[in-house]
């Protein structure tokens, strides 16, 4: 898991750490029952105040992705991978919407934007197959 924080990103440092853990859990790098690094270790890796990591761990716990166990650390929950995938889908869909809006503002025709999106999907055939295996994109989960 790459815990990197960039203070020039609009996302706050603790949200960036949440994002990195969600990525690692969604991709299977961190499986259910896996132990997260300690707050101190994670802070040293991300080069941030330990309070920032503690906040990220709290946010992840509120999402249901991880749980703290007294005395032994913070672990990915049984349902963690599913929640992480759902959160990642939400975030990527939001990013796609922003990109589409920007493209339209820049003067592209809506047909062009649709066509480019379709082409990207076709190019990434492997990605769509992978998605089909994990239950397909959730229309409901992605919209808010």
């Amino acid at each position: 898991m790459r815990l990197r924080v960039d203070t020039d990103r609009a996302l706050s440092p603790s949200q960036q750490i949440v994002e990195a853990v969600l990525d690692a859990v969604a991709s299977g790098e961190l499986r259910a029952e896996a132990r997260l690094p300690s707050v101190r270790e994670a802070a040293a890796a991300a080069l941030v105040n330990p309070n920032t990591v503690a906040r990220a761990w709290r946010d992840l716990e509120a999402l249901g992705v991880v749980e703290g166990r007294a005395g032994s650390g913070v672990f990915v929950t049984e349902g963690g991978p599913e929640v992480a995938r759902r959160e990642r889908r939400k975030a990527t869909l939001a990013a796609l919407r922003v990109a589409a809006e920007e493209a339209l503002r820049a003067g592209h025709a809506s047909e062009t934007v649709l066509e480019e999106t379709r082409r990207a999907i076709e190019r990434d055939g492997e990605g769509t197959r992978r998605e089909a295996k994990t239950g397909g994109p959730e229309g409901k989960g992605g919209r808010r």
Partner: protein
Amino acid sequence: MSDLVTVEVKGLAYAFGRHRVLDGLDLALPTGSTTVLLGANGASKTTLLRLLAGLLKPAAGTISVLGLDPARQRDRLCARLGFVPDTPDAWPWMTTEELGRFLAAHHPRWDDALATELRTSLGVPANRRLRDMSRGEATKAMLATTLGHAPEVLLLDEPFGGLDPIAHEEILGCVVRALEVGTRTVLVSTHDLDVAARLGDHVAVLAGGCIARIVPMEEAATGTAPRREALKGMFADVVRGERT
């Protein structure tokens, strides 16, 4: 967060001759938190830190650090406070190892294993004299020896100035590991807004001889702007306000 305050400054004034550089300065640092001190060049950040460390005597006002008066009870405070000045102030002819041995003899709480581990992990040469070290090496040596006595209060005066990118990252890592949330009270003066954005629980701006603003980091960086940008905006706001 705890409501306890480890450092409390009230109505502090300091002057170089007739030139008053600090005037009516109030500051309270909550126990176990990290505060980043920003200020324009010449804002007297170093003077404030030296006053807190008991190296200067206030012209007026009171300073309490761990319940002690730094200027009057410097000996007692020394054992519990760590100060890394912006330019190494240890004896230039000493090696890091000699400096460690010297401090061990003077600090009842000196932890030799910790100091050696810090020195090794930072790659500080044990047998090189401080005067023969690069800026990065000297800063690491000072930091390692300062942390060796496990200070409850840590004052860092621009530890990131004039460092190459690798030394910068190593020292930042060392400072992050030195932040003991809830127990160690830390004040870091810096011009580096990336460092400020990473380290601070609170951000303070020194301008016009007093703490013109002090806010929790979350408050300094609200809205959608990246944290570093938000800090720059706040800093510019305060400094411009003072100059007009």
